């Protein structure tokens, strides 16, 4: 690795336990339905399931055939059907249709629904309304934490973002609290807790309640992880909206990393078929470049290639015995490295082809201008042209949002004209997308508070109501301003650069955005950890509209070892990007911390925008 961790960096806890736990529980559930059965899996659960229990394990437990839950009639002839689904109403209807079709045909089978990560009352309600509640048995597979990497846990709940931040639906908060509870049971209590955001606060409170209710066995345990930091995604949309230029983020933006692995198409593998590649710390080549700025990656890879060649070349001067050694011990590793190297070089080429075009540079330039807040007119024109040329609906939307957040909303004229242009380019249904974005506070109009319509002000009044204290209201974001510029100034997010920013030897976390911008989310975490509280950050908290929802909670007795105190669990509610992960890994290396990431899902700008978009069904 280009920047190795300090020698005294703490060891990471072993998260593979979570996988084993989930696997055992699933097997137990499958065995609750003895005999051969067909398993219907929801598409979104397929990749996570694959990381927990592969097909052969499922077959061992008498799963005959696997089906995807989709809107097609199932052609299963098994006498027992098992459904593994997320608790969504849509899925319940699918199951109900299937069961009712069987009933019509006079067929009786056994049905079992396994909800992951938990069952919702609403789902049972639907089963009841459809008249099949008595015919199916329901179970929960409490699989909420998938270790994607040694330091990365994902809940694989991409819908969390839309459900909570757009629809104001808090159902997943309980899941988050359960997940935290599981972590504290397995890895000891967290002596220091910090958080910011309404959702963070609610999750934290609920989690505490869970811990209190149970006769906590963790009380006597020594903490393994010294700090936990909960952060709402809506504290920092800007970072998530920027184009990623760190290798892992760029791979995600370009190819979409799904559940820790990526499908490299023929253009990368330089063969005629696609290849699914697992991207994590076990990939030796990848682990060295994942956190690097893209401009360094190619140089690094070619250096690596030369080294590899040299290693191969060594065999020329070998005698038989040495050769035997070489073949039996090193060759396999070299071959493996060779394979990975060629894959990543292929990926780089493919990215370069896509990104080094002038367009991309212009795009980055515009983004930087928006972050720094100069040439706003020019940037607005750029965005307009972007829309006019129908470059990409998601990209256009992203730029509009970035402009809106950095500028505290668009001025009324631009707001109307950009929206009009957008509708003309990408279709009228996006009128709903805009309404969503407005509600989430991503794309707003610069307006004094009094122009809020009657309904909205009524609702925002409710928010201040005492009874509504704990309630998120979807509309509350209307009343709040992003204040990005002021925060940026306060936290010094735009580094002053004298001369060229050396991306090879980064000075600060800004390197993940080519030295133009320190990610806000990571900066907040850095500042709080430094102070061990929110003290002195009052102004920032106020600007973030989060005065009520920033909290610190320290354990009174300090049983934590100094090593554990340098392990920090960061919880991103609503998703985090690979760039943020890279930035915090960098911070960790600088300060001797190790960060562990828990996110509801890995996200990036495109995913955020898609979550807000209304697409025709």
């Amino acid at each position, binding site marked *: 690795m280009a920047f190795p961790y300090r020698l005294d960096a703490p060891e990471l806890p072993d998260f593979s336990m979570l996988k084993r736990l989930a696997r055992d529980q699933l097997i137990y559930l499958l065995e609750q339905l003895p005999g051969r059965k067909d398993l219907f899996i929801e598409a979104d659960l397929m990749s996570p399931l694959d990381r927990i229990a592969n097909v052969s394990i499922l077959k061992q437990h008498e799963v005959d055939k696997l089906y995807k839950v989709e809107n097609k009639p199932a052609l299963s002839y098994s006498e027992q059907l098992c459904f593994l689904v997320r608790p969504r109403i849509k899925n319940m209807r699918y199951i109900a249709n299937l069961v009712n079709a069987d009933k019509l045909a006079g067929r009786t089978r056994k049905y079992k629904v396994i909800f992951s990560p938990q069952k919702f009352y*609403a789902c049972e309600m639907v089963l009841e309304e459809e008249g099949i509640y008595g015919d199916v048995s329901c179970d929960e597979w409490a699989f909420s934490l998938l270790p994607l990497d040694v330091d990365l846990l994902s809940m694989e709940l991409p819908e969390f973002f839309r459900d909570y931040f757009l629809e104001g639906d808090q159902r997943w908060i309980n899941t988050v609290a359960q997940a935290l509870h599981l972590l504290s049971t397995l890895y000891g209590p967290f002596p220091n807790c910090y958080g910011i955001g309404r959702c963070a606060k609610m999750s934290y409170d609920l989690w505490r309640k869970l811990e209190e209710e149970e006769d906590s066995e963790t009380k006597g345990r020594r903490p393994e992880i010294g700090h936990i930091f909960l952060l709402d995604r809506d504290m920092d949309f800007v970072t998530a909206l920027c184009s990623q230029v760190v290798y892992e983020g760029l791979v995600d933006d370009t190819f979409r990393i799904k559940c820790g692995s990526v499908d490299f198409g023929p253009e990368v593998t330089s063969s005629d078929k696609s290849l699914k590649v697992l991207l994590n710390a076990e990939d030796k080549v990848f682990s060295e470049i994942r956190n690097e700025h893209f401009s360094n990656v190619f140089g690094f890879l070619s250096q690596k290639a030369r080294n590899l060649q040299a290693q191969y070349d060594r065999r020329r001067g070998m005698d038989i015995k040495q050769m035997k050694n070489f073949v039996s011990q090193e060759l396999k590793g070299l071959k493996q490295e060779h394979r990975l190297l060629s894959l990543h070089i292929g990926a780089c080429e493919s990215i370069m082809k896509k990104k080094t075009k002038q367009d991309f540079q212009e795009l980055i330039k515009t983004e930087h201008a928006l972050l720094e807040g100069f040439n706003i007119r020019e940037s607005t024109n750029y965005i307009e042209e972007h829309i006019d040329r129908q470059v990409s609906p998601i990209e256009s939307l992203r730029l509009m949002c970035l402009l809106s957040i950095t500028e505290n909303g668009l001025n009324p004229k631009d707001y109307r004209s950009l929206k009009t242009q957008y509708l003309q380019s990408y279709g009228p249904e996006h009128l709903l997308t805009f309404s969503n974005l407005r509600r989430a506070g991503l794309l707003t109009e610069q307006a004094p508070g009094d122009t809020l319509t009657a309904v909205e002000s009524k609702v925002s009044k409710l928010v201040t109501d005492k009874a509504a204290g704990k309630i998120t209201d979807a509309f509350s974001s209307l009343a709040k301003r992003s204040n990005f510029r002021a925060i940026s100034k306060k936290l010094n997010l735009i580094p002053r650069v004298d001369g060229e920013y050396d991306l090879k030897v980064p000075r600060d976390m800004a390197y993940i955005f080519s030295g133009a911008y320190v990610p806000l989310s990571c900066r907040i975490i850095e500042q709080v950890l430094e102070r061990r509280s929110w003290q002195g950050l009052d102004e920032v908290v106020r600007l973030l509209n989060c005065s009520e929802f920033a909290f610190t909670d320290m354990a009174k007795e300090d049983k934590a070892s100094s090593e554990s105190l340098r392990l920090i669990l960061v919880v991103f509610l609503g998703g985090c990007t690979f760039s943020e992960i890279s930035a915090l890994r960098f911070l960790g290396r600088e300060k001797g911390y190790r960060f562990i990431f828990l996110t509801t899902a890995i996200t990036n700008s495109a995913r955020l925008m898609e979550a807000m978009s209304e697409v025709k069904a």
Partner: protein
Amino acid sequence: MGNEVLQNRVLDARIFHTEFGSGVAILTGAYRFTLSANVGDLKLRRMPEVPGLQSAPSCWTTLCHDRVPHILLAVGPDLYILDHATCSTVTPAGLAPGVSSFLQMAVSFTYRHLALFTDTGSIWMGTASLKEKLCEFNCNIRAPPKQMVWCSRPRSKERAVVVAWERRLMVVGNAPESIQFVLDEDSYLVPELDGVRIFSRTTHEFLHEVPVASEEIFKIASMAPGALLLEAQKEYEKESQKADEYLREIQELGQLTQAVQQCIEAAGHEHQPDMQKSLLRAASFGKCFLDRFPPDSFVHMCQDLRVLNAVRDYHIGIPLTYSQYKQLTIQVLLDRLVLRRLYPLAIQICEYLRLPEVQGVSRILAHWACYKVQQKDVSDEDVARAINQKLGDTPGVSYSDIAARAYGCGRTELAIKLLEYEPRSGEQVPLLLKMKRSKLALSKAIESGDTDLVFTVLLHLKNELNRGDFFMTLRNQPMALSLYRQFCKHQELDTLKDLYNQDDNHQELGSFHIRASYAAEERIEGRVAALQTAADAFYKAKNEFAAKATEDQMKLLRLQRRLQDELGGQFLDLPLHDTVTTLILGGHNKRAEQLARDFRIPDKRLWWLKLTALADLEDWEELEKFSKSKKSPIGYLPFVEICMKQHNKYEAKKYASRVGPEQKVKALLLVGDVAQAADVAIEHRNEAELSLVLSHCTGATDGATAEKIQRARAQAQKK
């Protein structure tokens, strides 16, 4: 049963116990029997008629064969057994002849044995099936006994029957002699697990077989180890050396352990605390001389006796024997105390025995609280406060259970107050719902942060309230509202609309109709109508932008429909931009321009659009014409770019010359004219441009140009 009983009255009744619970059998005035095997689950069974029964049977009882209750009755010299279906006569095996009537019968505690008292004064004892005789005893008393009961003899397993007349009590067993006692008063016998209880107006006695340990110790001149140990202890207290002699004697026989055990056991069977004490003291004394005597039995006996003495106290009045207590278990004893509302004693016992709080103190406190809430004369506040003061946060106490009890007594307000103390919202909510305090339940559920709970309440509310009230409730609870909306979005679209309507939320109503316009409606007319509704809603919401946009969309839809009809091809649902592009691609330039005017497409967009479309068509002639139609609002660089994209260098060059000075270098480079680009850059004296050109210079071909640039640079630096 009602009618029969009303008409004929109940003559007699028997209670009996089976493994299904306690049953009851009754004899009515019509001399018919009816029984129920379990009074908890009352199912009555009318037994068959006994032929020729004209008067009450001389005696009768209930038996249990194979878990089925039967009735045995005696009429004159005959015995009948009634089961569910039949009535059969039976004859006891080996009964002495001459019997003309049965005066009494008794079933043993275990229902296994039966005793019959005949008018010849003989007592027949045998199995309950009457098929086997155990013994027969003639007491020579022909007067009908007042009562006859079995006396269990747990130790010897021998059978014995106790017969009582007015002033005489007789114990009869498988022996030629009987034991007789004189009764001073009218008495009543109760057969129990290990003996017979004898009640009279002034006395309460217990007749039972003497346990082994007691017998060994207290038998006259007993030399049993226990007896010796008791003696040794007494002597020791008198400070006599005889203590040592006795002790030695026991030890020589190696029976000290046995002696201690005997003393402990015997203590258990004593009712007088003094006697218990001296026996225990003896045991404790003996223990001193033993190396490894496990202390448990001693300790437990002390504890048990203390508990027993406490409940035997006449204030309490539960005179259990030790064996009964052991059979009953402490939990049941506590339950009985609780039922008698002897809460303080129960708690003291729990504390004394150090029972876990959840099973012990908390449980009793909870019972106490449940009783407390029934005290109607105390105000709600006082009761709630008193309960909370006593219970505090005692683990295992469920305030919701207590509240449920309060509600059961009709004290809803008190129940609500009590629920305030319940820390688990999950427990509060169901009861609140039951009490029809749904709104309170809703806010509690919301406070808990558990969406599932909120949902439970919501659906409950939905069924309970009328729609209007339901919506009004939701209106004040944004979190519940958004949850319900989510549900409706998937399950009840119409309700969603009503919700928005009720709230006058025109913005969302508009969005709703927009969604409907492309999701629910198929026909164009329907879609346009939906859009019109949406537009109206947007106007009401003062969202003119959305209203206008929606109206434009209506216009576009109608137009697209017309285009599709007139020109064929697919127009419907295309964005405006794509509609115009499609028109151009189809060669309908006039229409395209008309459309652009109608929808006020900005110039820039139109130029981009036309440029892209014409290039796609590779209609270079038209493109050139278009480029000359007026000054391009987007400059000419895009023209160059797009031509190069189509690999038409020739056309690209045409436009390169028209590109404005700022982008000229870029344009020239695009068409591959490095030399000219270099010239322009040098002319501009622009360092960035120079390096851009330089980076495009490749090896041999552009060597000269590169040199030229280097020179220009050097010159510029000199200056």
